[in-house]
């Protein structure tokens, strides 16, 4: 769905609405963030004003409160949620929609989700992990012993679009994260052919030292300066 090559030069989009404008129905969206930190709040808000439906969302948890991701649940835009933690008490909107049978859920261990997304970006079609052996997470999965220890076969989990958050970007798309706000954002950036990054600052190429880059520009197609950096839906 996205262009074959990133556009020449400047990847900076005018606003969040423009950055997500062409997201189609049915897209699989990798959504960064953990515990309200590193969440692309403004891009999420733009998605609430966007017509795309039948979305699959891959993210750590099922939203918090009434904002951010919860708005998309309420709007009935999300067909399926793939996450690591579905039923936190603050995810009451998701619970309501789920109990009404209006959304599919796939819940997977956090490390397995991170590694499946990394695998998608890294050209690894599948890998084995000991996590989940002998649990519900193993249901329907192949298992195999390595050196006397069982492991499950897990497949790469790519997205069509990654919607992520970083602290700072340069105009080429190099990203830097702050604190624990990296979380799923770096692996998601690499695991979709179209990656849209909301940031708190945009600088010129060269202002981020090469050793300090956390996500190389090659993984980022669009950069947008978040309109309201105080937004905190904790999606």
């Amino acid at each position, binding site marked *: 769905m996205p262009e074959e090559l990133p556009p020449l030069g400047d990847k900076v989009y005018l606003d969040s609405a423009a950055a997500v404008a062409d997201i189609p129905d049915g897209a699989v969206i990798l959504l960064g963030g953990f515990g309200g930190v590193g969440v692309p709040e403004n891009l999420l808000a733009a998605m609430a004003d966007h017509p795309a439906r039948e979305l699959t969302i891959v993210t750590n948890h099922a939203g918090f409160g009434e904002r951010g991701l919860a708005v998309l649940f309420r709007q009935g835009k999300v067909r399926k949620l793939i996450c690591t933690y579905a039923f936190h008490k603050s995810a009451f909107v998701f619970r309501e929609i789920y109990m009404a049978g209006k959304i599919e859920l796939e819940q997977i261990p956090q490390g397995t989700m991170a*590694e499946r997304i990394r695998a998608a970006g890294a050209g690894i079609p599948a890998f084995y992990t000991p996590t989940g052996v002998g649990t519900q997470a193993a249901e329907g999965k192949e298992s195999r012993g390595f050196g006397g220890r069982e492991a499950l076969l897990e497949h790469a989990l790519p997205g069509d679009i990654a919607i992520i958050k970083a602290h700072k970007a340069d105009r080429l798309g190099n990203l830097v994260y702050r*604190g624990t706000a990296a979380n799923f954002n770096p692996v998601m950036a690499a695991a979709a052919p179209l990656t849209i990054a909301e940031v708190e600052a945009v600088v010129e190429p060269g202002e981020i030292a090469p050793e300090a880059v956390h996500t190389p520009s090659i993984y980022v197609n669009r950069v947008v300066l978040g309109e309201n950096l105080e937004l905190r839906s904790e999606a």
Partner: protein
Amino acid sequence: MNSDPKLEAAALTPGDIARRIAREIPPGAAVNLGIGVPTRVANHVEPGRGVMFMAENGILGAGPRPAPGEEDWDLINASREPVTAVPGASLFGHADSFAMIRGGHVDIAVLGALQVSARGDLANWTVPGAGKGGIGGAMDLATGARQVFATMTHLMKDGGLKLLEECSYPLTASGVVGKLFTDIAFIEFTEEGPLLREVAAGLTAEDIQRVSEPRLLVAGTIGTLTREPEAAEPGA
């Protein structure tokens, strides 16, 4: 904590349990603390012991909660609480964080438990029936950490058992619990089975056995778990 007045009277507070767990953490260890009582363990580990606390959302070297008003809301632990970064801390994303956990680099994970079985199976992520809890990082931590310490009240509120022959709740991981700290006992899982190491002051091994489904082993002297005034817990 349960309907037995003798056990109830002897039961440790969450702060007492956290303090006891802290004593089992060797100097220099890298430790992941789960939500609840495990989080409080940090309050009882002296900074000079070189213990590094890691949180699976991407920090090694998490320090105490900052003073009110001084929080950095980009810097939290896996319980969504603001933390500080100690000198020598490092930050990383989820893939690197779980590579660290699954790769066996975290020495100890201290995890809350719902049930523990005779052979150290851990159930801590959900109760049967839809709509409660979530997996989160529990399966990776329980499987990947070199040692798993579990903690729970010994009994359910209705007096039901939680230390069982087999867990009835969905498992988090099989045979992983090394040490179990309840409000009335400290039990170590050995090749031969669960070994009762310490009991709360005022209780006997028989008291613990009575509320535990698996046969508990005893070797040598059984130690005593003591209570302290809550004020003894710094920062709680």
